[in-house]
């Protein structure tokens, strides 16, 4: 009827126990959940957007010092982490697919793989943080970042500007890592439910919605990696 989301007025009795009282159909419930997640991701874009804005301004102002800061980051670890996240995105996608196909075992395996990859990412991130800590590159009273601007051996790095780079680095990657931790938590919960065979072709909304979230976190990293690790690398 017209463009209403509810197709017909009265529906047969609820077949699925997961259907909440205030929804007319499973379809409606699923669409609501997925739209809800997408809208939430839109807010997340703006949340990171505020930081991207700060990043853009200071990168424009202090390009040389940002380049220097960026070159002190470990591309191998950062690149590996990018790959790890991409793999985890694959496993999530496969988990959703398995749910669509009702392959109970595969769902669980894929979800566990995803969480493992997530933990690997966090582990590597931890190693990087540790390195920065040892090198005194953590903003604060002990901050110390000697060296010169890439391509200009005679211009020393401005400590303040480098500190802004590292502040942004830690806040952006830190909030990203926080999102990862939340994601792993979500998947732990979903794996538990998957083990209780909650999901199948009729009902896999939670897997799918959590998957959307995870992919989004991956996308953020896809941008963070070049923006933070690859400034002015060639010099």
């Amino acid at each position, binding site marked *: 009827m017209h463009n*209403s989301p509810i197709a017909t007025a009265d529906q047969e009795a609820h077949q699925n126990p997961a259907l909440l*009282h205030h929804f*007319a159909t499973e379809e409606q419930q699923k669409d609501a959940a997925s*739209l809800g997640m997408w809208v939430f991701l839109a*807010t997340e874009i703006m*949340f990171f957007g505020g930081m991207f*804005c700060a990043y853009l*301004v200071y990168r424009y102002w202090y390009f040389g010092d940002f380049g220097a800061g960026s070159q002190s980051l470990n591309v191998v670890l950062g690149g590996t982490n990018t790959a790890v996240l991409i793999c985890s995105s694959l496993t999530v996608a496969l988990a959703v697919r398995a749910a669509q196909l009702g392959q109970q075992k595969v769902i669980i395996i894929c979800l566990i793989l995803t969480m493992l990859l997530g933990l690997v990412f966090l582990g590597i991130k931890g190693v990087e943080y540790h390195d920065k800590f040892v090198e005194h590159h953590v903003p604060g009273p002990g901050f110390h970042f000697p060296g010169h601007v890439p391509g200009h051996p005679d211009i020393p790095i401005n400590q*303040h500007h480098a500190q802004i780079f590292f502040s942004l680095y830690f806040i952006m990657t830190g909030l990203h890592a926080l999102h990862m931790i939340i994601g792993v938590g979500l998947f732990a919960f979903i794996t538990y439910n998957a083990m209780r065979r909650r999901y199948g072709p009729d009902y896999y909304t939670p897997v799918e919605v959590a998957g959307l979230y995870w992919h989004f976190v991956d996308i953020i990293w896809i941008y963070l990696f070049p923006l933070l690790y690859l400034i002015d690398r060639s010099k």
Partner: protein
Amino acid sequence: MATAVLESGERETYLNKEYGIKSWLLTVDHKRIALLYLVSITFFFFIGGFFALLIRLELLTPAGDLVQADTYNKLFTMHGQVMVFFFLIPAVPAVLGNFLIPIMIGAKDLAFPRVNLLSWYLYIIGGALMLYTILNGGVDTGWTFYTPLSTEFLNTHVVTAGLAIFVAGFSSILTGLNFVVTTHRMRAPGMTWSRLPLFVWAHYATSIIQLLGTPVLAITLLLVVCERLFHLGIFNPALGGDPLLFQHLFWFYSHPAVYIMILPGMGIVSEIVCCFSRKRIFGYTAMALALLGIAVVGFLVWAHHMFVAGISLYAAMIFSLLSYFVAVPSAIKVFNWTSTMYKGSITYQTPMLYAFGFIGLFTMGGLTGLFLASLGIDVHVTDTYFVVAHFHYIMVGGMVMAYLGGMHFWWPKISGRMYPEGWGRLAALLVFVGFNLTFFPQFILGYMGMPRRYWDYSHSPEFQILNVLSTAGATVLAVGYVLPMIYFLWSMRYGKPAPDNPWNAAGLEWMVPSPPPTFNFEEQPVVTWEAYNYDEIKEEVPVAQ
């Protein structure tokens, strides 16, 4: 309809279905959550109002004699923060929107009832942090948190205040999320987009701002907190940062936020004007598009708060120009409300009185906004009482009026009781008179050059007369605000039971019983009529007086 009946023989409603604290604190019923919000925002309104009264008392005399300078600074800071973040932003959406949107579109609840409850809890956690801040000695950054003052130079509770607003921000985001998804996914059969009441459209537009603006405020406050704790330098010029970046990020949210604080009120006024003129709204499509237009274009104008802050000349020009673009849809709205009354059949119940007040005061507030948007004038009046008067005209004269109008309009539905009409009209009159007395003099003060956030103006005693008028007005206003609170409470016990449709109004919410049952509708409603079908409504049914 097969109505559920309680053992006592009463009809079962959302209010009497269950009793006890738990049935309220763990409820997922949007109507009960709306009432939880009602109680909590009223609490914060009176706290904010209390600070306002102290501000006004201090300004009665030029010398800073009632309170200390620091105390005064805390008063206006906490007045602004409490009023904006803990009263006006949630006021209409979280109370009336929460209560009415599902009913208006023919749904049993919002799309995510538990998220709705979560957002109330977030609000309460934020509110508790704010109260903690207040009780612990307060904060004196100004509601705008400008850096580097807030990050490096004050030793008050900036961190907890920032976190309070951070948390409350997520409450606002979740409310917006719920509304957007609900409007998309939960409409009853036949409830097409072009049949939505403008109240729903207004909340949809508001939600867009809440969703896309609030996260930026959240991250900005987080940066302020980090900056304060770790001295990173992001907003600190001494460490190479740019204090204007903070202002850009802050106003990127806080300008659109002023539309969070007015669009829902516009929705209310549309409902009221139609009902008491017995007419369809004039220019439905234009009205709906104007709401969306304000929400979108509202994001393009933020730096008009920074004209003298040291931004580029050219950016200032762009932002001034764009500021005028938002005013066009606002103009459309004012003209359409007026035209709606043309050839109507108008009655003057309390809600309509508030709607009149809204139209007039919003127009005046909006037009003075045009003064501010004009670069040449803004240089002179920015950061003076002219600005203070401008925004109180819109926020208090506009939105608080609309909120009160809406409360009176839907109170019979919410509580199942009528409020005393005579008292209602008296309070509306008091609010109107008190308001103008309080804030009109401030326009003049501002043009004379009295800066805002001044604790002491003994160097310019010529400002005193107008300040005395303003303080006098504030006392009248206080009475006008306390009255409704008293008679609403009174009516819950002693008011006449309200009929299902006391105003003979159009809209789904008037087809359910007052107060509505838990799931709003016994059967899924099917909509076959356009919005505001006042021509199809019989006039014989007595209209409550």
